[in-house]
């Protein structure tokens, strides 16, 4: 058994002794550190070690000693149209990012239909476990919010309501100039609270394509922006924008774009590559690709090409608030292990089923009825251990005995291993190993859509990449692979590498899903048969349980750690890696 994590986490960075890290790059910080203290002591050897460390390190957001006793809640409406409530939401998001820089002050209460569905449960958790007493303003009440927090802004930046991308540029300016983001109609409100105009984007970008707009912003602001965080404020395109991560980006002085990774947009792609290349090694790419420009596969592949870590949720809310709050002193991360790390199990001649959900805890079915009914694995976003500790504490404390956490996705963030240059792989995976130890995780989940997806192409790994995982994760119980189904299988020493044999589509009816599983059982006649199923996002656990109970064949549903231990004992699956002849589709 590994020892569970300590309560107050820090990221795998070595420069976190510095307090406010949001304005200075880690390299510059550490030069300061060297000159003032360590440099004369450790000299060249220390610098060499530091250089190696910086390959994977980025500063964590500053933590307060304990959660604030009081904070302000501003509820947000359900309207996320640019011609609706986005202007006031953008104002509040920028204000939140600025006001929360010193200490957590503002928590935005997103509507209950928000994709990340933990906003309300987390609010209550912060009150119950962290003692935060929230004072509630009216819905979208920017006037009241500014009365309390306008002092944290130096002025305002006006975005152009005729040019969507100008709002994204305004978030960049907000961070580096401490500016409130306002549309034209909100200028009087900003000035009522004593704020002066710092920048005005109205008319600046008329008729310009996005690559020119973001180049303009790059030329003026990029040097002032963080090299540790870069925000791709994509997701919904057109008339809707859900920029929930913007508060954290503003807080961190991140550069914002929604640039495309699609070769169909060569100018945007070129600028995107330039930005990725300027960011610190293994730094964080926040947000999500634009649904209107490129694909998840293209975007994630490109991020991986640069060895960067993606935290891929553009509407992840309130991170500027939660990132500063440490775990409660009485808490440590403990998982529901059903078998000892060194246990040896023997599989019987039966069908074993394990189910896993990997679509970011909080946008799936965590809060829906049925959780706890059957063993279920949940993939943890490991960077939240230092970026968003209260959220992970919430999930860990809310788990049932049947909820089992696993690491992923492919490493320290959402990444595709085939896209990561081999020389960058060890440092990234070292970071993943360290977080897995902290989070008490023993299974690594891998996904790779760089050459296909669940429809076309392949989602498999060549032997060389599988070799890397076995080398980098000697202590895991095993690996699981895919998103849709995949066919990479292996077993080395006691660590199986098992791909998903079934993908439960959200729209798949119970009777067809039941027939699917029964067909797999027919297709795999040897026993034991190890059937690993990936459950897509909003499928409820009740639905999964109903499907499994409907099977005409007896199966045993087991926790994932037990499943892997059993799979290690009876290799009825054939070793297979990606072959050169396998179909390739680069997710156009």
């Amino acid at each position: 058994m590994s020892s569970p994590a300590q309560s107050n986490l820090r990221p795998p960075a070595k420069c976190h002794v510095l307090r406010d890290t949001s304005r200075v790059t880690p390299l510059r910080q550490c030069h300061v550190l060297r000159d003032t203290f360590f440099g004369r002591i450790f000299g060249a050897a220390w610098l060499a070690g530091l250089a190696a460390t910086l390959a994977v390190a980025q500063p964590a957001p500053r933590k307060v000693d304990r959660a604030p006793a009081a904070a302000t809640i501003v509820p947000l409406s359900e309207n996320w149209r640019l011609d609706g409530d986005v202007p006031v939401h953008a104002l509040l998001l920028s204000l939140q990012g600025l006001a929360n820089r010193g200490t957590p002050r503002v928590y935005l209460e997103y509507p209950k239909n928000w994709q990340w569905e933990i906003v309300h449960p987390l609010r209550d958790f912060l009150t119950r476990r962290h003692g935060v007493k929230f004072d509630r303003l009216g819905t979208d009440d920017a006037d009241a919010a500014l009365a309390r927090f306008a002092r944290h802004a130096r002025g305002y930046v006006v975005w152009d309501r005729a040019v969507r991308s100008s709002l994204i540029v305004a978030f960049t300016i907000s961070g580096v100039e401490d500016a409130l983001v306002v549309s034209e109609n909100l200028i009087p409100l900003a000035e009522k609270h004593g704020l002066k105009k710092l920048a005005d984007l109205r008319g600046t970008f008329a008729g310009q394509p996005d690559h020119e707009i973001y180049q303009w912003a790059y030329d003026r602001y990029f040097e002032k922006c963080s090299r540790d965080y870069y925000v791709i404020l994509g997701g919904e395109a057109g008339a809707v924008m859900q920029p929930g991560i913007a508060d954290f980006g503003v807080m961190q002085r991140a550069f914002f774009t929604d640039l495309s990774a699609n070769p169909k947009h060569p100018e945007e792609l070129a600028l995107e590559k330039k930005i990725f290349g300027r960011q610190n090694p293994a730094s964080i790419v926040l947000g999500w690709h634009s649904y209107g420009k490129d694909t998840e596969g293209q975007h994630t592949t490109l991020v991986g090409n640069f060895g960067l870590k993606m935290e891929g949720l553009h509407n992840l809310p309130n991170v500027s608030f939660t990132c500063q709050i440490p775990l409660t002193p009485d808490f440590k991360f403990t998982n529901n292990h059903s078998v000892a790390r060194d246990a040896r199990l023997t599989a019987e001649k039966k069908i074993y089923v394990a189910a896993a959900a990997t679509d970011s805890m909080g946008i799936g079915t965590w809060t829906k009825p049925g959780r706890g009914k059957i063993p279920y694995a949940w993939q943890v976003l490991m960077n939240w251990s230092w970026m968003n500790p209260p959220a992970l504490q919430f999930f860990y404390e809310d788990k049932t005995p049947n909820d089992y956490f696993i690491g992923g996705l492919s490493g320290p963030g959402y990444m595709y291993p085939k896209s990561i240059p081999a020389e960058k792989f060890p440092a990234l995976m070292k970071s993943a190993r360290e977080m897995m130890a902290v989070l008490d995780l023993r299974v690594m989940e891998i996904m790779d859509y760089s050459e296909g997806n669940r429809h076309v192409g392949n989602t498999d790994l060549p032997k060389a990449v599988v070799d890397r995982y076995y080398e980098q994760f000697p202590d895991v119980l095993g690996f699981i692979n895919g998103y849709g189904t995949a066919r990479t299988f292996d077993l080395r020493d006691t660590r199986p590498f098992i791909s998903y044999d079934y993908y439960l589509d959200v729209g798949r009816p119970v009777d067809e899903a039941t027939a699917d599983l029964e067909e797999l059982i027919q297709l795999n006649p040897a026993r034991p048969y190890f059937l690993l199923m990936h459950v897509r996002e909003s499928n409820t656990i009740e639905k999964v349980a109903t499907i499994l109970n409907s099977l005409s064949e007896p199966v045993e549903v087991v926790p994932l750690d037990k499943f892997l231990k059993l799979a290690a004992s009876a290799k009825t699956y054939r070793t297979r890696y990606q072959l050169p002849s396998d179909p390739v589709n680069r997710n156009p």
Partner: protein
Amino acid sequence: MKRPLLLLLALLASPLTRAEESRPLLAGAWKFDAARSTELSPWKNYDLVITVDGSLVTLERKLAWGRREYADRMALDLGQPETAVPIAYWPDNRHLGAYVGDNQTKRVRAAWLDAGRILRLSSDLVLETQQGPRAVNILSDYKVSANGAQLTLTELRSTRNRPVVHVFTRTK
């Protein structure tokens, strides 16, 4: 009475000839009707084009889910007892960990039934699973409605307990 009976028997015994000589009922472009079909995921759309040229029948299908598309084409000579059809991919049920086997071929026996109203295929192929190769037979009936406006494809897979039913409407 013997001559008409013999003639009738001869006609029934050679449905292929009947189909060749009459209007090819199945020929045309067909649009998928999701509401009356087995759930199609991971695909959303299924376009089917059937052409008939003498004993040659060609089935072209395009499966799509947004930008993700898969298309294939199967040319069958009904004058032959069996046709070997190369297949690079098995898109029929992408929820399953089952893939085209190493030989990348399926052997198809095809016949017209009911005076060309039904095309019946019996396909043998090998699917690869985590446990290795597995022989699978698929019986496919392409059945045209009386008015020729609807096509029902019923597939019985030897490994599946439920039939797969796809309903199409004629577009041309």
